[in-house]
């Protein structure tokens, strides 16, 4: 086992880049250089990044195809909105609560279903996501199918940016840890991993719970930006949307998921007037990527300094 030392120059550079990015956009928002339209798309982009990176942990790194991510998003959105509007907790408590509730839902769903494999698991998670949605529709406390409206707009750029950074840091560090190696070994060959003494169920559930928690946070951010949440918003089409990003970016590539989330958000914004064409494009992307590049555009490679270096022709 090698122990990695923290490379301070790299850490400082990365922090500086993040701070600069944050300040730049914040400056644009306060001076109104970025108008409402750009801000809305920026928000969707951040939420999509969180969703794609967290689903990629489940689908890409752990290799467990889940089609119920929107269900966890719904759990998070409803928990946070109930906490802030009905129980008057601060937004931070709402976010933490949403992560915990969605994580708990992930645990309750994950423990029984993760015994299933491949396509059975996919269908079971899809079914459970739909059960969450139908259940929400039948609870009067949260207005059933009409949903909750008039939610205060508490999601700011700072919260969004913070949540995106937190998601990426947690997922990247998890994947690079010994836990991460165990998780990847489950994807590569579950039987072999088990023979090596890895408790495969434990790692599958762990990845599932962490992925679900971040989906919950994404749901909370969504609810507190767009004023209204309805069970219908979180149907399985939403799960497929997230799946498209993960597949496009590469199953098992965090940078791929981020790039694909940004790309899909822009594509959605551009094709807003033609929703059918957007869906036809999604469909073609799924089919063509799977036939010609089943590992996704980035595969399991990360876009890092080495790849960038190669592009610029700099030898390291």
């Amino acid at each position, binding site marked *: 086992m090698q122990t990695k030392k923290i490379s301070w120059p790299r850490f400082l550079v990365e922090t500086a880049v993040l701070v600069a990015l944050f300040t730049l956009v914040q400056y644009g928002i306060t001076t109104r250089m970025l108008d409402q339209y750009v801000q809305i798309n920026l928000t969707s982009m951040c939420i999509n990044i969180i969703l794609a990176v967290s689903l990629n942990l489940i689908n890409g790194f752990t290799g467990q195809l889940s089609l119920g991510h929107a269900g966890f998003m719904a759990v998070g959105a409803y928990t946070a909105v109930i906490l802030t509007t009905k129980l008057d907790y601060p937004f931070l408590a709402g976010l933490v609560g949403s992560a915990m509730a969605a994580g708990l839902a992930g645990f309750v769903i994950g423990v029984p279903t993760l015994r299933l494999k491949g396509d059975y698991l*996919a269908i079971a998670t899809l079914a459970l996501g*739909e059960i969450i949605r139908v259940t929400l529709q039948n609870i009067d406390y949260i207005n059933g199918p009409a949903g909750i409206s008039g939610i205060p707009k508490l999601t700011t750029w700072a919260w969004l940016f913070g949540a995106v950074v937190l998601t990426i840091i947690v997922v990247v560090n998890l994947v690079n840890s010994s836990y991460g190696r165990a998780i990847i070994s489950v994807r590569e060959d579950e039987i072999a991993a088990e023979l090596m003494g890895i408790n495969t169920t434990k790692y599958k559930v762990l990845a599932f719970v962490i992925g679900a928690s971040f989906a919950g946070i994404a749901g909370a951010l969504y609810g507190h930006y767009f004023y209204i949440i309805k069970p219908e918003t979180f149907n399985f089409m939403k799960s*497929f949307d997230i799946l498209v990003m993960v597949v496009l970016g590469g199953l098992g590539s965090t940078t791929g998921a981020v790039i694909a989330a940004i790309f899909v958000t822009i594509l959605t914004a551009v094709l807003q007037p033609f929703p059918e064409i957007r869906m036809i494009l999604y*469909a073609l992307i799924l089919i063509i990527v*799977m036939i010609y590049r089943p590992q996704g555009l980035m595969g399991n490679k990360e876009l890092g300094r080495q790849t960038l270096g190669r592009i610029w022709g700099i030898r390291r």
Partner: protein
Amino acid sequence: MLELIQQLVNGLSLGAIYALIALGYTMVYGIIKLINFAHGDVMMVGAFVGYFSVTLLGTNILVAMLAAMAVCAFLGVIIEKVAYRPLRNATRIASLITAIGVSFLLEYLTIFLIGPNQKVFPASAFTVKAYDIAGLSILNKDVFVFVSALVLMVILQYIIKYTKTGKAMRAVSLDMEAAVLMGISVDKTISMTFAIGSALAAAAGVMVGVYYNTINPLMGIIPGLKAFVAAVLGGIGIIPGAMVGGFVMGLLETMVSGYGNSLYRDAVAFGVLILILLIKPTGIFGKDSGEKV
């Protein structure tokens, strides 16, 4: 008691529709181990072909059904050739994602070409009458759906049990490599499976048009999922299982709408799926076969 029998009668025709769709799922899964997510949407295309055959060409409902079956059989073969064949040796997750893509493509191409609004199946195509038999009210559309589904299932059983194609299909689903060695063309057999499965789905689509009276481009999703549940319930890959599973799902759904809360109708179907997957993933008729390393 009478009401219970009435609900059972209502459930039978819905169950027949689910059973027809489930047959396509189960046949395709039995032969290439793929959950053909697009199957429900093939049914939707069938419903639209039937609709246009009735409205534009003025055919009667039986001709419309045959036309829908022919068009969808062709569509099924093309889908398999273009989308699934290149992935036959890929991972199952890759094929599943492709199937989801095909499903989207069919749905949104239809919306793009025809528009998202629902269409009303013309009343002239099928005049609904109610018969009063021993206190039960029986609609002629229920009889039509049930009888034609039954006829199709009998034909399917005949094809699978007594024809060369059927024998080839059984051989390929049992052991693809051995079938090749016996001189069976695997590609042709798989195409045939898709053709038959899609034709059955198309017939079901026209029946849905008659049964619910309206059709729309996204109508295939929920019946498709429920039929999939039916296929899993009966034991996926097992043809009589799909028939039984379909009827069970249809009856269960009418019972829940009749006696419980119809908002929970869809949740019950998915709940059944979860229960089977957890208790007996091989389904009612399935045999347990241990996993080979």
